[in-house]
């Protein structure tokens, strides 16, 4: 059952602006519908927002990238990340090995995983072979 973002923000005792920021940074566009205060979240998205409100580093930021070229290592590709301008123009993105050569020219969601040393970008729709 879908959850309304305004109600979730009230339950979590967070400001509306913060809830909107969490929606925009932590969720894929396919995980929510509606506009502004009429935003509805899928159950998985609501769980992510709950966790992100408590512990922000536990939920990675979601960005969108477009494949530019393959790398020598088949688990990595070079892609342009939407919203990032300047130098470098493209970034290394980790992908499942089975998707090597299948993402050419495609736009896909990625996770940005950051620690004190830097950031790693990873293909977001990971399911594993048996899931």
């Amino acid at each position, binding site marked *: 059952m879908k959850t309304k973002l305004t109600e979730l923000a009230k339950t979590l005792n967070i400001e509306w602006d913060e809830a909107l920021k969490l929606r925009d940074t932590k969720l894929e566009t396919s995980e929510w519908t509606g506009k502004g205060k009429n935003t509805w979240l899928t159950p998985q998205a609501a769980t992510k927002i709950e*966790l992100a409100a*408590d*512990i922000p*580093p*536990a939920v*990675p930021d979601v960005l969108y990238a477009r494949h530019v*070229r*393959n*790398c*020598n*290592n088949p*688990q*990595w590709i070079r892609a342009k990340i939407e919203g990032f301008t300047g130098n470098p123009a493209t970034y*290394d993105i*980790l992908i*499942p*090995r089975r998707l090597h050569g299948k993402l050419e020219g495609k736009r896909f969601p990625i996770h940005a*995983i950051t*620690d004190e*040393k*830097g950031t*790693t970008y*990873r293909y977001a729709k*990971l*399911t*594993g*072979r*048996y*899931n």
Partner: protein
Amino acid sequence: MQNSLDVTTDPFWQAEQIDRLLGFEVLKKVCTADPDPVPPSLLADKIGLNKGFSHAMILSISQKLETLDR
């Protein structure tokens, strides 16, 4: 087109990325108190290693423990 000076083939760079991704997975497991095991293939996709890595690591640990017991 592939680049001959590709950073993705550098073992030190790879180790840094794997360390970061593995750290994140551990953090997520602890934060969510998730008791479900992660299948080796999914873990391999998440941290950028081959799917036989988990098995090889467990085998290596068991061999080391056996050596210590003797």
